[in-house]
């Protein structure tokens, strides 16, 4: 029996070396580092307690990044989940051209976010982009959607929705296909209107999918920042600054690694809370077959 244990550990050991080295130990180390100062030149790091966190509380850019992340989430999460459901409802039954319609919705998902950012930068470009041309056509003044503080965050959020909705659609598509056709027919015979059917039957049945997709949308709202790098660099004047992008800037442009560690802990805490929340919500609502 003991030999079997040893063997089992040998099976998981190689994966665990990498898992611990690049995920678990870094989390612990990040926590420790967040209580120390950044080593500079000959001055070694020293223990500073909660100083980095105190600095964070007083940091207007951090506050801005948190507010922006909240707005960004409040837009991208409901918009991408809602649109993905609408898309799935459009394409879940067969008709001529359904394949083409599915491709249209899903294609943005396979493009690199960097490529997506370039495409949208062109789409938004004043003077060149389609949006500028349409505004010109109806006689509106040209605007620089990514270049002005009032709209930069929304311009970035739109790109996230474009990239994510098609991905979420396929989960709804799978869920919709599990709803038995006889149920729909029976409802139709009883004179049940499509909207009532959706509200009373479809929506409750796809609840687990909605939960799953929403959690992914929340994670995406904190993790998708590649396009920020290309489109706005968090600007103008931090108007589109997001938490993960700010971590990148503090850590790798200003090289203040201690402060970046404290910021990383905030992100880890948020994702942990989301994870635990999902665990309990799933426990209560999801019915596995």
């Amino acid at each position, binding site marked *: 029996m003991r030999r079997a*244990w040893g063997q089992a550990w040998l099976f998981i050991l190689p994966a665990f070396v990498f*898992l611990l080295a*690049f995920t678990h130990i870094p*989390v612990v180390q990040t926590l420790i580092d967040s209580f120390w100062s950044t080593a500079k030149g000959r001055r070694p790091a020293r223990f500073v307690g909660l100083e980095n966190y105190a600095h964070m509380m007083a940091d207007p850019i951090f506050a801005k990044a948190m507010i922006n992340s909240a707005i960004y989430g409040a837009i991208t999460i409901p918009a991408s989940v809602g649109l993905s459901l*609408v898309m799935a409802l459009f394409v879940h039954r067969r008709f001529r*051209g359904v394949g083409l319609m599915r491709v249209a919705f899903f294609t943005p998902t396979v493009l690199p976010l960097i490529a997506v950012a370039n495409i949208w930068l062109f789409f938004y470009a004043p003077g060149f982009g389609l949006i500028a041309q349409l505004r010109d056509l109806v006689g509106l003044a040209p605007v620089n959607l990514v270049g002005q503080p009032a709209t930069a965050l929304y311009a970035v959020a739109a790109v996230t929705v474009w990239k994510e909705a098609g991905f979420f659609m396929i989960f709804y598509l799978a869920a919709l296909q599990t709803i038995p056709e006889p149920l729909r027919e029976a409802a139709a015979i009883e004179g049940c209107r499509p909207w009532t059917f959706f509200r009373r039957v479809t929506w409750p049945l796809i609840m687990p999918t909605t939960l799953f997709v929403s959690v992914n949308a929340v994670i995406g709202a904190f993790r998708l920042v590649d396009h920020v790098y290309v489109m706005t660099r968090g600007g103008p004047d931090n108007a589109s600054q997001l938490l993960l992008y700010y971590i990148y800037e503090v850590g790798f442009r200003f090289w203040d690694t201690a402060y970046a560690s404290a910021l990383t802990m905030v992100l880890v805490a948020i994702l*942990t809370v989301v994870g635990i929340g999902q665990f309990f919500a799933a426990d209560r609502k999801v019915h596995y077959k």
Partner: protein
Amino acid sequence: MTRTDTFLARVAGWMLALLWVLPLLYAIWAAFHAPEFEAKFDLTAPLTLHNFSRAWEQAPFARYFLNTILLVTMILSVQLVLCTLAAFAFARLEFPGKNAAFALVLVQLMVTPDILLVENYKTIRALGLVDTIVAIGLPYFASGFAIFLLRQTFMTIPRELDEAARVEGCTLLGLLWRVYVPLGKPAMLAFGLVSVSHHWNNFLWPLIITNSVETRPLTVGLSLFSTTDSGTDWALIMAATLMTSAPLLLGFLLFQRQFVQSFMRAGIK
């Protein structure tokens, strides 16, 4: 639904679909026409591949392609080996600490290496591997997601097969290789597509850890190209953008069903 309802839903569907591909179509238009047609729609404008050849010449895209292909191949091969072994142990073997170890695997589904940039950079620097292709892949070698997905698949394989193989005198490794790997292939294919597209598209970590042409993957090369090398020559930038996404895009269009099913399989746990 009445016939009019269905008709209206179709029309709305097509309008949304058109709206959805519009940015991409606009990019394709610009990439295949001379720069003077960037913002001028003229259906008679001559098509050209000139933008693509200019982009290809102005930046070492051939090298970037090679780097990315090496990167995704390396990551996927290592992931498959490490995660298959671990998934098999979690699915079929009993050992002390199993639940705790599996909880650690699940942690990585939420807290991914993508956000632990600072510490992972320090680790790579300590290993002396900054600016290598291996360094881009190292944090992703053990994928909690792959372990989870393969464990789920392996648990559905009937235990009678195990016993039959044991009676035949098969070792654990032999059992894994002869029974579990062949039966787990669809799940591995699904994970493979997800992994390749994820790492083909990954950006922030490679941006941090690379700083030379010999190691930079396509995404980093493209961002550099579009911000510094080309000014605002949109036709050129769109050509480069499409070029770097082309393999995935073509792969997707050719193997749509597999792609969609893989993403679906990978998501529903």
